């Protein structure tokens, strides 16, 4: 399928503020064991010796006056959105690989505009002089056409011939590339010249995939149909208006999509993100990956896109619906190795439950099942009584105290956040029935104020005596105290 790639090599530099030398760095392996490397560099810094892929420390040493910033995909995506809208006015269904890099199938557009030269010229006029444009029969070749275009555009008529001249590193698998070079395979053409069976036998699925790329076949030779039930959608009765809620929704929905796909042994190369605002406006954007999406990479892209929409124009009325529709699914290759047993999920729980369940099961193995707990509310007068604990993964069991009963004399006020498992003895000084000092550790704190007492009648048939409850305020905080006239106990801390 004829594919156009538009690439802005300097797009990551959009986050720089100044006009002097500057570069953007990202997490990744660089020489010398550094974990931060230069991702993009402007012309002035480049003249001073800073180069893409270099470690950040080395870049700082070469050019200490340069402005350096971490790569921020969120900002890049937001700034890229107007460009995408402009490109979509020209050609529909633009697919974003990352901010600054798009692929678009142009079969229909070529017919509409009457030829490739016309279309490329139109794209150039929109994208401007900093864009590199490549056109080829597949996305891999189109991308490399853009990368290798000296300036402007490069149209490839014969993908196989073009790819044959590329260096073997174009396949992008560092561990395999070293072996290819050791075998004397320095170009994609040399790799494509080998029998496919031999490559598959020696290098497995990854080698097979590289051979397909080198042969100009890309992976579109075997497109999968898209089972419609694999799309996931979430409706929000309370529209999501703040970015944190949106971020967690993006994560949860991405996890749900990937869990569903994993069960089918599938991974998507493209995902359409559709969001609906409370005012009824629906927006869609397609993201594409050269590797199949994994849960973290998909989550990131959904989040970047939603943030770009929100920060660029806002989502009037909040986000009420989010849909992720996978397309271009592949069941072949290394993503099959990602198949793992996914539990059935528990009713009434969130989409991330299988992951959470595994994580908490590991915690249970470490600390024991009695230390990984869930809780439900039940009736009672004291904070400790109002919680019904049960082990994670087990049924809640019977209520010990009826939640619906009136419980007159229940402790008033806000719920305390710290409640000792057993009331803890504590020293309090009293003056004519009024608390004056409370001992916290080794020091005595004056009581600044107090409320109560509230009478607590013990269950005499169980040998419990009566007591009085006080809320005591000191400069070190507020405490719930129970006293039986002789001894006092700490029942809760309002921390």
């Amino acid at each position, binding site marked *: 399928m004829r594919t156009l790639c538009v690439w802005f090599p300097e797009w990551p530099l959009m986050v720089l503020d100044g006009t002097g030398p500057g570069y953007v760095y990202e997490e990744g392996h660089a020489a010398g064991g550094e974990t931060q490397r230069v991702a993009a560099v402007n012309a002035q810094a480049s003249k001073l010796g800073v180069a893409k892929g270099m470690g950040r420390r080395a870049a700082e040493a070469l050019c200490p006056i340069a402005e350096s910033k971490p790569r921020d995909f969120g900002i890049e995506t937001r700034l890229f959105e107007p460009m995408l809208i402009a490109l979509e006015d020209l050609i529909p269904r633009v697919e974003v690989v990352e901010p600054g890099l798009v692929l678009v199938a142009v079969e229909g557009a070529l017919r509409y505009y009457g030829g490739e030269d016309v279309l490329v010229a139109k794209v150039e006029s929109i994208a401007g002089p900093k864009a590199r444009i490549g056109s080829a029969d597949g996305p891999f070749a189109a991308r490399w056409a853009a990368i290798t275009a000296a300036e402007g555009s490069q149209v490839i008529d014969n993908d196989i011939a073009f790819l044959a001249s590329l260096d073997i590193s174009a396949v992008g698998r560092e561990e395999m590339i070293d072996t290819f070079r050791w075998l004397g395979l320095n170009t994609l053409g040399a790799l494509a010249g080998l029998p496919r069976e031999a490559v598959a036998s020696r290098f497995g699925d990854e080698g097979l995939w590289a051979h397909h790329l080198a042969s100009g076949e890309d992976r579109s030779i075997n497109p999968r149909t898209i089972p419609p039930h694999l799309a996931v959608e979430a409706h929000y009765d309370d529209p999501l208006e703040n970015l944190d809620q949106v971020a967690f929704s993006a994560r949860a929905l991405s996890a749900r999509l990937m869990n569903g796909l994993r069960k089918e042994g599938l991974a998507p190369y493209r995902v359409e993100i559709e969001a609906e605002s409370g005012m009824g406006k629906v927006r869609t954007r397609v993201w594409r990956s050269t590797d199949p999406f994994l849960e973290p990479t998909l989550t990131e892209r959904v989040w970047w896109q939603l943030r770009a929409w929100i920060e660029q124009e806002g989502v009037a009325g909040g986000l009420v619906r989010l849909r992720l529709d996978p397309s271009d699914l592949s069941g072949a290759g290394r993503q099959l190795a990602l198949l793992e047993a996914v539990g059935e999920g528990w009713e009434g729980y969130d989409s991330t439950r299988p992951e959470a369940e595994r994580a908490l099961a590991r915690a249970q193995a470490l600390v024991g099942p009695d*230390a990984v707990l869930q809780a439900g509310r039940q009736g009672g007068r004291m904070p400790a009584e109002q919680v019904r604990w049960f082990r994670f993964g087990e049924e809640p069991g019977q209520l010990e105290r009826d939640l619906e009963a009136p419980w007159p004399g229940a402790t*008033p006020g806000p719920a305390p956040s710290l409640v000792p498992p057993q009331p803890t003895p504590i020293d309090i000084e009293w003056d004519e029935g009024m608390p004056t000092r409370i001992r916290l550790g080794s020091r005595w704190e004056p009581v600044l104020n107090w*409320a*109560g007492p509230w009478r607590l009648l013990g269950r005499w048939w169980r040998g419990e005596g009566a007591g009085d409850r006080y809320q005591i305020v000191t400069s070190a905080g507020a405490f719930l105290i129970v006293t039986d006239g002789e001894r006092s106990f700490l029942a809760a801390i309002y921390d």
Partner: protein
Amino acid sequence: MLAERAVERIPSLALSPGKIVGLEGPAGWGLTRLGLSLLAAPSQVGTVVTIDARGGWLSPLAAWEVGVKPGRLVMVRCADRRLWGQVTAAILEGVAAVYAEVPAGVGEHELRRLAALTRARKVGLALRPLRGQLPAGITHLRIYGRGVSWEGADQGHGRLLERRLALEVSGKSLPWQAFDLGA
């Protein structure tokens, strides 16, 4: 309640995926409830976990009151500092957000390892050291409790109603600021 207002009023006070918030100060100065309130937003869409390093003191009542969904809240108890790192790491692998009390004696190296895992797994993490301070550079936002005062109790009358927290806040790309929050 004040904890929720603090979330609205302090810039950047939220648990975002991959971000770490530190809450430092003695028990009683309101940081536990503030920390639990950070789990409210992520609990709307995923599992949230508290790690109790005090031996079972952490109560879900306050968490529910500040908006954490009861069905999404799991409370883990681990006061053993030798196990704490492993348990926290295991939990970070699969949940949306974590409020973790840090027992005394957990090493800086272990905290940095957990911080890296938090970023890699895109989990929201609130760390509440029970003693001392968190090492520099692992949190995106640090909140220091500087005091608390309560309203509502009046020499035996009334009841606790509202509190006022004195906080100091600092963080990455956020200058140091002091807040006095209350009704």
